[in-house]
């Protein structure tokens, strides 16, 4: 709770209570009238002053009590800078350990630990050191300490992770972490110095210098094995039972090697393929694995390559293949032989998700089967009679969705069946007039991936008037809605104001048509679109449309979200390799996470580049002018958070005791005088 919190300020009003009480109780010392004081002598003890002091002391104790009580509830924390660590000659050794994925190569990390030990051993008695790890992010392991043993103990517990290091990001993070430092500090960066980790702008790798203190960058490069590193870069399902695996040659020369590839599907090893792979420097080679047995739904694909090279962890790759059958969708039509049916069916069947279109004649349709389908298509909403319209509205109201098109039958209606939009009489088209799209709401999920709407040529539309509950997504030049959406109960009614027969408009033959149908289908069927393969330290975005995101399990099977979080949109940091499982009401979805392929490239920075970096850091430090000498005396360590509520409790106890004693004494005094 802040000191400006309303609760705190309200609590402070309690101080008025003792003040008020003492105002009531404090009265002038009672005088006793006497005939003459000519024979009296002033007492040495000024009792009324003493009594007044007692009153004031008692009131002060009570005010203090309330103040401490209110203050204790705020749980105040004082940040105390530890004294005595830093002197003018102190050097702060900032040890930064590269724990990125590439440090798993050979014994790179053991070398790094040994190097850090050597730095600690070489520390002067007045020096201090701090330990940071750098990978996908920079973390403080040990704040500044004069005791090397503390850091030495932490070093033994470190190990490389699966993240990717970027030197620019690392320096920026270090700038923040050591911003308060005003000692002479040396950044000891222990890494393999991959070229791929270099920042795009070299200047981003130069640390800012604070308060003019000298900065030095010490390069500590570990040695890596000079052997070619092969890595698995991709897994693609290229046929019904065929998988293609991409193998990358990360060396600087063309390489050829015999490798065995073992495929596991859903953690069951299926087959091993041994093949000689050849690839140019940095090139990729593909191998194909046939006769793969997939299960329905998401399949976990694991490919491992052997024999392993020095960086064995990138010889394995995870992938996900969605082998779900095409989702069924009803296409209601009054004219099953129309060209529109062909366009619609083709577009949906070729969508990434895959839909199986079930064509039904609208006059023979039995609405009782509607509940089997998450969404349906109607090629001319005007062909729906009143009875069916009521059934369809109830279907939408209960959570179903309809993609409805207009047609010549719609033009003869007064209102749009199901949606209820008014139609202002007659066919609103002219064979001699062409409409174009005026405005597109590209933020809508059904439209956010499709472009080219402005190139449409529309010759016929039904003059539909958008109602209050309608969200016009695409409007034409005459303000007639071309695409509108209405939310009915729990479901959606999406009205496309055209006929997909290449006569009313050229939409069916435009490239955006298939994409639009796929997005509209995904939107109407409430399917989330997830990137099923991601790299470490990327984010998994869930519930972008405001729906529930579901529970997320990491590769070890741990829940990542609390129950409350599962109902909100979430960004999940994928910081482990393996399979993340997103469990929703619609079923489980898998996301495969692999290391960043750039970490597999063990091409190192040039020695000259390293030297330049070191020199630029030193030059940057020397160019800064020391403003004054006061900076030297400032301490250099993470401030220690000191919780003072315990102290406040002790003070409270003392105050209560004092108040009781004083109050008791005061009461006794009153009794005596009466």
């Amino acid at each position: 709770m802040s000191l400006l919190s309303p609760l705190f300020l309200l609590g402070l009003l309690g101080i008025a209570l003792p003040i008020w009480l003492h105002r009531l109780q404090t009265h002038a010392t009672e005088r006793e009238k006497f005939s003459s004081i000519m024979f009296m002598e002033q007492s040495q003890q000024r009792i009324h002053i003493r009594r007044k002091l007692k009153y004031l002391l008692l009131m002060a104790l009570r005010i203090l009590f309330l103040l401490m009580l209110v203050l204790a509830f705020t749980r105040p924390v004082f940040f105390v800078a530890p004294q005595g660590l830093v002197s003018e000659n102190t050097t702060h050794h900032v040890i930064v350990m590269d724990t990125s994925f590439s440090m798993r190569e050979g014994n790179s990390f053991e070398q790094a630990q040994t190097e850090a030990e050597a730095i600690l051993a070489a520390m002067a008695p007045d020096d201090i050191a701090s330990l940071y790890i750098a990978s996908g992010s920079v973390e403080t392991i040990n704040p500044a300490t004069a005791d090397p043993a503390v850091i030495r103990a932490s070093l033994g517990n470190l190990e490389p992770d699966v993240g990717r290091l970027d030197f620019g990001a690392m320096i920026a993070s270090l700038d923040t972490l050591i911003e308060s430092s005003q000692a002479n500090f040396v950044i000891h960066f222990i890494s393999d110095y991959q070229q791929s980790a270099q920042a795009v702008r070299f200047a981003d790798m130069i640390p800012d210098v604070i308060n003019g203190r000298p900065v030095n960058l010490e390069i500590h490069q570990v040695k890596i094995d000079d052997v070619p590193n092969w890595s698995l870069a991709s897994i693609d399902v290229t046929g019904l039972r065929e998988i293609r695996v991409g193998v990358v040659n990360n060396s600087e020369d063309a390489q050829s090697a015999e490798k065995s590839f073992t495929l596991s599907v859903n953690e069951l090893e299926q087959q091993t393929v041994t093949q000689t792979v050849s690839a140019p420097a940095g090139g990729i080679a593909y191998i194909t694995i046939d006769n793969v047995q997939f299960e329905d739904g998401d399949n976990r694909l694991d490919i491992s390559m052997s024999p392993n090279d020095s960086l064995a962890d990138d010889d394995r790759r995870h992938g996900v293949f969605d082998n779900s059958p095409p989702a069924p969708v009803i296409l209601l039509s009054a004219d099953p032989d129309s060209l529109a049916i062909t366009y619609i069916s083709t577009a949906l069947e070729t969508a990434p998700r895959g839909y199986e279109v079930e064509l039904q004649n609208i006059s023979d349709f039995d609405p009782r089967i509607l509940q089997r389908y998450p969404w349906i298509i109607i090629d001319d909403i005007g062909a729906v009679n009143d009875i069916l319209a009521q059934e369809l509205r109830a279907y939408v109201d209960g959570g179903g969705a309809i993609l409805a098109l207009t047609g010549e039958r719609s033009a003869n209606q007064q209102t749009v069946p199901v949606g209820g939009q008014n139609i202002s009489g007659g066919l609103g088209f002219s064979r001699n007039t062409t409409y174009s799209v005026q405005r597109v709401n590209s933020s809508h999920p059904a439209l956010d991936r499709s472009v080219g709407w402005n190139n449409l040529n529309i010759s016929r539309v039904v003059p539909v008037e958008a109602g209050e509950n309608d969200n016009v997504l695409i409007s034409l030049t005459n303000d007639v809605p071309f695409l509108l959406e209405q939310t009915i109960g729990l479901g959606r009614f999406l009205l496309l104001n055209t006929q997909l027969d290449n006569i009313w408009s050229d939409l069916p033959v435009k490239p955006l048509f298939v994409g639009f149908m796929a997005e509209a289908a995904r939107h109407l069927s409430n399917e989330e679109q997830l990137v099923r393969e991601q790299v470490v330290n990327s984010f998994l975005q869930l519930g972008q449309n405001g729906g529930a995101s579901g529970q997320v399990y990491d590769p070890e099977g741990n829940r990542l979200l609390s129950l409350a979080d599962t109902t909100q949109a979430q960004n999940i940091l994928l910081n482990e390799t393996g399979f993340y499982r997103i469990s929703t009401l619609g079923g489980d979805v898998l996301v495969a996470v692999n290391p960043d392929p750039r970490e597999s490239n063990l091409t190192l920075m040039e020695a000259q580049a390293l030297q330049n970096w070191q020199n630029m850091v030193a030059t940057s430090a020397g160019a800064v002018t020391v403003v004054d000498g006061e900076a030297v005396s400032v301490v250099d360590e993470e401030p220690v958070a000191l919780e003072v509520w315990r102290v406040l409790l002790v003070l409270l106890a003392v105050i209560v005791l004092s108040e009781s004693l004083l109050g008791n004494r005061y009461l006794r005094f009153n009794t005596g005088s009466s």
Partner: protein
Amino acid sequence: MIELGKTDNKSKPTRLLDPGVLSSLSNLELVAKSVVEGFVLGLHRSPKYGFSQEFVEYRPYTEGDDPRHIDWNVYSRTDKTFIKLFKGETNSHLMLLLDTSASMGFGSGNTSKLQYGKYLAASLAYLSSRQHDAIGTMVFNNEIVEFRPPTSRSGTLHSVIHALDKAEAVQGTSLEKPFTRFREHVKKRGLVAVISDFYCRPEDLQESVQPLSSHGQDVILFHLLDPGEMSPQIKESTLYEDMETGEAIEVSPVFMKQDYPDRVKAHIAAIQKAAQGMNADYVLLDTSQPLDRALHAYLTFREKRS
């Protein structure tokens, strides 16, 4: 001197003389009458004090005498006016000086010093009236509040008692002004009874009263003190406020127990010594004690001075 707190065995006070009982009487004249009658009854017709109506002698009528006392039989025979004197009667004047300063308002019991002083003055006036003495009064504090020169005319007693009755305890005490005024207006020799708590310097008292004695006045000082003034009992340090000056002083119980009584006694002794120095009688009165002691003292004083 009559010591404070002691009772004369020869004249045990009757119930009517008790100040506590007197305070329940609203009429000062009734108080005076009750006191004097009760006192006289207690005297058992003592010839010493001459309250019998036994004829002693005639004396010529002089100005100021009550004409009612003229013996008209003698006048018819001799054409001269004579006053018929009885045993115990004198031809003296009694002037009652009552201090009504604020300090006289103090009283630890039911009766304040001022009330007690009023009772005393009224009783003395009544007593003197019975003996046909001319009586007058001066009520004073810093200023002269009421002044009635001595006279033996009828109604004097009532006017004197009335003047006493309406006196209130206010302001401080200054003896110089009333006594100077007294000297200016009362030339005839007589008895002067000063009733006060004498919270003043003995030197000032002597300086004020001495001229009266020098002019032949017989002065008796009735020093009234409340028991609470003699030995105040306090348990805690107390802030006392002077009733006359309003000044406050904080005193400790130790001081009030050990030193204060000695200082009061020293003051009494000094007042008494001053009285002796100016040939005046001094009577210390405890306001919790009956009035008969004061009346005895007065009669003794009167007898002595007549």
